[in-house]
């Protein structure tokens, strides 16, 4: 127990609001405003978890997204969330924290024995073994050991993240001194600025380092900036992580809110300032992974904001000026501080701090936590070792936006090369370490003219610190993934010298801190080991997100029905009232059957009734695309496989639309209403693509001024009445004589008329083989039509039928469904529609492709109707195989059902050279079982079409 709570410090905590929580079952307390990390630090808990591979004890390292160790499964209000980063998560009353990778708890973890085998388990050891018995033998064990936290199987967070889009004149990323200065300058010039910061308040490092800006306290400066931003119409988003930069200047940001769903922002800005700061580097020495070894910057952060003091006997090892105020603050808080500076020439030490210049930290003492530091060959007893190895600028978003990096020796860091990304970079992100410089750069980046806000103090000076391959012991570079300097040495020895190879081979930088603390160390170590400079060694690719973002935030509300909204019928309420069950067909929610009971049995009964008397179904999803104008006939001649210019007004014709590759894209009936007005029916799922095929030909071939195309599918309701008593039903419903008279409306005729004062289009087309009427009215009159037909239905013993029954009716007739009875190779002549291919001499879409060697091949799969004497239908998806000889697929069953009318199964299939096999026996194959079928014509019922006019 070493960390403690100071009674004076702590700007963010409310001591009047104590909170209870537990860690690995032990009850603890903290205050409102604490992060999980600060509460645990103040509680004196040292061992917070175990590392991924060796199960070494792990303690708190940092203060933000760079934290690799303090990661917990957090249970709150009955729900557990895995892998919560302690430094960025606020404490709530009653939270239960569970360490990851530990059993039974962090301190007594049984897995710690693995560390004794560490010499046999170097980076990438698994590539060299586990081969004899096969990887699968070992994998379950390895998987159980890996993996950080545990998912709560019963916790399904809601899909409630709104996705909001915004534009602004200037986006400023980071609200530290540089970001504040940029936002202030821009806002004062009247520009609309959005200022975004990950933390819960403005100020960045000023919040714990403090500062006098323009002669006043930094808080005044921050408040004044906030006021200026708001006054100029801008916006301040705190608790917001700008996680991604995308093409065409788009930024994505995750805003965390308390008591309300998080938000996902998509922000486009005319200009962007990146002031994301820098992250402190660790130092590398023997056992530098022990709990109690912390980032110096983080110690100051936890002290000032939360009153959480890292320890009582502290060694602070550094090589830069930035650590001096840290030492001073900790000493001022009552800790015994030894400041060990690696430099020979150091600034004067703060008062009350023991000072060791030219001090080299070579090792730490302790087993489960640090008990001493080895400096210049002697051991200094300490309960806490703070380290600072310099700072790494946060250039992630600059790189994602296409920016390049240069080595800056003075900053000892890779810094953005000006002008290589659209972002202007300022402050520590630019390698400028010091308040005055941050303010000046921010001011300029914000477009400020005149002098920048002033501040005292020179830039921090620093000496470069590197992992030293000559130093004995185990030096950790990536504490979560247990990558040590030895692993990098082995990687270098084995030739994994490119930075990407190093990462992938050793897993360095692949932990959930995304390499924030490890990447530079790995790069520097590889450079040292291979005698190259850092620039020669390379840089890793920065991959989004900038910080781990909840999947739910990016996914947004697109879940459940909103994931892929099905289209709904205008008459859905009526159908529900009629007792329909609904299912999705081609993207539309349609009645599958009506009434209670087994769907298949209902479908049989409905299909039987439709053949016996009359059936009604909602055909509204059928695509309806109007083609209007003097060029309409030419366009359709070009786009259709069958000629349509020869169609007379008032008549309809069935045909196909092909791709330019000759493949059947869609089928349907085209109506000619007038000389220059057609309606193309498309399959419900193909309406949009058929429209595009027509559009392309209209604009490219026919000439855009000669006709127009208008998709009116959604504007109307279509109800189909089919069966021998269809006309009786229409008559009972009071429909006009023009429809009822076969002379004025014969089969394949279409007429437009008026009914009850609104337009009604009636067509005699049949998807069932029976006399059928397709009645189309404007959507708003659909319910009137539905009511009229429904009343009449009862007089003629009719029945509403669902799509399952329609599928039976059309299968009996051998009518195809595109995409089900055809595939990506089917051409019209495979479906028995060779006529236009043989006879048409004019050009049409896809024609040339119908005469290639493949199109002429004798082995093409053709539509047939395999029949069996068995009581059960052939399984759809069964294959057709030769009865003798080697077994291979000759084709497959595409549709299959029992026909209530024929009282036997019917089926459709695509069969290799199927036409010439008609009358022959063929084998069937389904899930290992074989059988026999007879190859028949695809039309099983009424091949002469007599029922159409019955």
């Amino acid at each position: 127990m070493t960390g403690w709570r100071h009674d004076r410090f702590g700007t963010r905590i409310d001591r009047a609001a104590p909170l209870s929580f537990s860690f690995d079952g032990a009850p603890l307390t903290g205050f409102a405003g604490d992060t999980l990390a600060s509460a645990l630090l103040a509680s004196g808990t040292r061992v917070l978890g175990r590392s991924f591979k060796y199960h070494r004890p792990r303690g708190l390292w940092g203060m933000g997204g760079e934290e690799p160790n303090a990661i917990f499964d957090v249970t709150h209000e009955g729900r557990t969330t895995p892998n919560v980063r302690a430094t960025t998560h606020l404490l709530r009353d009653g939270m239960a924290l569970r360490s990851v990778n530990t059993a039974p708890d962090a301190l007594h973890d049984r897995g710690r024995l693995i560390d004794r085998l560490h010499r046999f388990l170097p980076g990438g050891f698994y590539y060299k073994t586990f081969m004899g018995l096969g990887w699968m033998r070992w994998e379950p064990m390895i998987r159980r050991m890996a993996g950080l936290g545990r998912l709560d199987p019963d916790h399904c967070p809601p899909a409630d993240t709104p996705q909001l889009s915004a534009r602004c004149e200037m986006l400023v990323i980071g609200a530290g001194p540089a970001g504040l200065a940029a936002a202030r300058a821009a806002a004062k010039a009247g520009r609309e600025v959005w200022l975004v910061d990950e933390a819960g308040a403005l100020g960045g490092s000023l919040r714990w380092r403090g500062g006098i800006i323009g002669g006043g306290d930094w808080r005044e400066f921050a408040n004044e900036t906030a006021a200026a931003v708001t006054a100029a119409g801008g916006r301040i988003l705190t608790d917001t992580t700008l996680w991604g930069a995308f093409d065409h200047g788009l930024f994505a940001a995750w805003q965390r809110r308390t008591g309300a769903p998080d938000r996902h922002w998509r922000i486009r800005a005319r200009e962007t300032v990146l002031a994301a700061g820098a992250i402190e580097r660790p130092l590398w020495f023997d056992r530098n992974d022990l709990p109690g070894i912390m980032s110096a910057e983080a110690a100051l952060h936890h002290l000032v904001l939360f009153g959480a003091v890292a320890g009582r006997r502290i060694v602070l090892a550094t090589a830069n000026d930035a650590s001096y105020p840290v030492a001073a603050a900790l000493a001022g808080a009552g800790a015994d501080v030894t400041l060990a500076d690696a430099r020979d020439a150091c600034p004067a030490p703060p008062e009350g701090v023991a000072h060791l210049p030219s001090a080299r930290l070579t090792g730490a003492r302790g087993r489960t936590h640090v008990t001493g530091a080895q400096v210049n060959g002697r051991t200094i007893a300490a309960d806490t070792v703070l380290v600072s190895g310099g700072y790494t600028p946060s250039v992630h978003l600059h790189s994602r936006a296409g920016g390049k990096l240069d080595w800056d020796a003075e900053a000892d860091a890779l810094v953005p090369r000006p002008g290589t990304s659209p972002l202007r970079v300022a402050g520590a992100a630019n390698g400028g370490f010091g308040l005055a410089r941050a303010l000046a750069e921010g001011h300029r980046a914000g477009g400020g003219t005149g002098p920048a806000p002033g501040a005292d103090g020179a830039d921090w000076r620093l000496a470069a610190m590197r992992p030293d391959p000559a130093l004995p012991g185990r030096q950790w570079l990536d504490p979560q993934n247990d990558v040590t300097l030895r692993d990098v040495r082995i990687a270098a020895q084995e030739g994994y010298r490119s930075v990407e190879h190093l990462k992938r081979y050793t897993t360095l930088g692949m932990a959930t801190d995304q390499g924030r603390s490890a990447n530079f160390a790995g790069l520097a170590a590889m450079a040292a080991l291979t005698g190259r400079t850092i620039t020669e060694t390379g840089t890793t690719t920065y991959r989004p997100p900038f910080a781990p973002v909840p999947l739910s935030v990016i996914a947004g509300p697109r879940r459940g029905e909103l994931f892929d909204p099905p289209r709904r019928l205008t008459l859905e309420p009526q159908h529900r009232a009629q007792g329909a069950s609904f299912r999705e067909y081609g993207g539309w929610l349609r009645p599958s059957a009506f009434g209670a009971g087994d769907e298949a049995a209902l479908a049989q009964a409905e299909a039987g009734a439709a053949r016996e008397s009359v059936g009604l179904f909602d055909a509204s999803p059928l695509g309806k695309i109007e083609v209007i104008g003097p060029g309409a006939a030419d366009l359709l001649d070009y786009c259709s496989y069958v000629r349509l210019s020869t169609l007379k007004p008032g008549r309809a014709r069935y045909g196909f639309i092909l791709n330019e590759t000759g493949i059947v894209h869609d089928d349907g009936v085209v109506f000619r209403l007038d000389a220059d007005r057609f309606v193309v029916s498309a399959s419900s799922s193909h309406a949009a693509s058929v429209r595009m095929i027509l559009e392309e030909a209209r604009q490219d071939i026919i000439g855009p001024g000669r006709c127009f195309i208008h998709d009116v599918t959604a504007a109307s309701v279509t109800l189909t009445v089919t069966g021998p008593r269809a006309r009786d039903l229409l008559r009972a419903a009071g429909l006009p004589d023009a429809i009822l008279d076969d002379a004025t409306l014969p089969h394949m005729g279409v007429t437009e008329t008026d009914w009850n004062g609104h337009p009604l289009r009636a067509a005699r087309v049949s998807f069932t083989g029976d006399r059928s009427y397709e009645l189309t009215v404007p959507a708003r009159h659909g319910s009137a039509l539905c009511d009229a037909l429904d009343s009449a239905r009862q007089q003629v013993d009719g029945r509403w039928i669902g799509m399952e029954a329609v599928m039976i009716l059309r299968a009996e007739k051998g009518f195809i469904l595109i995409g089900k009875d055809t595939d990506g190779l089917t051409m019209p002549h495979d479906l028995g529609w060779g006529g236009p291919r043989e006879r048409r001499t004019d050009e049409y879409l896809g024609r040339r492709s119908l005469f290639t060697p493949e199109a002429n091949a004798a082995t093409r799969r053709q539509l047939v109707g395999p029949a069996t004497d068995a009581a059960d239908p052939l399984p759809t998806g069964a294959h057709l195989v030769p009865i003798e000889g080697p077994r291979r697929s000759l084709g497959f069953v595409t549709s299959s059902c029992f026909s209530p009318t024929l009282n036997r199964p019917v089926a459709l299939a695509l069969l290799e050279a199927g036409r010439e096999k008609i009358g022959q026996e063929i084998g069937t194959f389904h899930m290992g079982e074989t059988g026999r079928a007879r190859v028949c014509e695809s039309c099983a019922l009424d091949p002469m079409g007599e029922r159409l006019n019955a």
Partner: protein
Amino acid sequence: MKRYSALSLAAEGLRGHRGWKPAWRKARPAPEYDAIVVGGGGHGLATAYYLARNHGLRRVAVLEKGWIGGGNTGRNTTVVRSNYFYPESVALYDLALRLYEGLSKDLNFNVMLSQRGMLIAAHTPMQMEICARIANAMQLNGVDGALMGAEEALRRAPLLNRGPGARHACMGGIWQPRAGIARHDAVAWGYARAASSLGVDIVENCAVTDLLIEAGRVTGVGTDQGTIRAARVGLASAGATPGLAALAGVRLPVLTYALQAFVSEPVKPILDTVLLYLGTGTYVSQSDKGELVFGGGLDRVPTHGQRGNLPMQETVLSGLLEMFPAFAQLKLLRQWGGVVDVVPDSSPVIGPTGPEGLFLNCGWGTGGFKAIPAGGWLLAHLMATGRHHEISRPF
């Protein structure tokens, strides 16, 4: 080549791992080779390995413009499977899968093949019918494919969305027990190490800028490290292939798109199969490290830029959460994009082209990783013999 084994690992452990040798020699290009393979991804390295091992060619070079395995080989979701419909495709991908099954031992490099099984999940009766069609085709082609019902699917993936609001409830689908995942980088490194030990020169940071053609014959390549002669040149460079082929006047039926992949923070085992959801287009598996590795469709804008955009990210992530609502607890850790070469019929292009001595292996689209051993095997056969292997003839 120093053999990898538990024993060698233990011995090295005792002497500080000082004895490991470079996995592959850092070769400088010689002026002339018997065969040059352009592209140091999985396909190129496998080609070189099989040229040396199957056909005894000793003077072989792999030229890689960056670092080996840095393209799509290291940018995919590591799934291996052969659950295809057409016999030609099944033969090709199953050759790959069979080679994968022996690869760790063959290369003496653990590629961590985990044949945990893959389910292609259906949500409508019509999709189940298509699944039956494909599963039957697999069986007829001698590949392990079966139809799986909803109950068994939910048993294997218990966290699947079974709530009343599920947009695409799982009805079952096609199950292939031998499908699974492998460690993508290890495939590249394993082939590189094995090829190098057979004398293949693997030249990194060597960009091919020209194809040398004399009298209708390939005579070598121009690179930023100078001219390198060879009478046989194989292109195995995925998205960069159209540009290289154009140097020989060869046009390809290829468009290039970005394909994104995603990785979540790691958690303890929660998913033991590879899953592709037809309803959402999202596929997912859990890596040995515990991360969910997932992806979906292509970004719909042709590109050569290796990065993705938000619309597809939103689609893939919402698709994943629609499949597994509990995964909404997790965070996205990494995301990246690769450039894939897509052919209209989604079948690869393997064969001789243009000038004599030039051979292609491209157009794998989103399926390149799973095909690596076969792609290498077949291209090597072509380059060594000048003739197609039975399996590559249809492509």
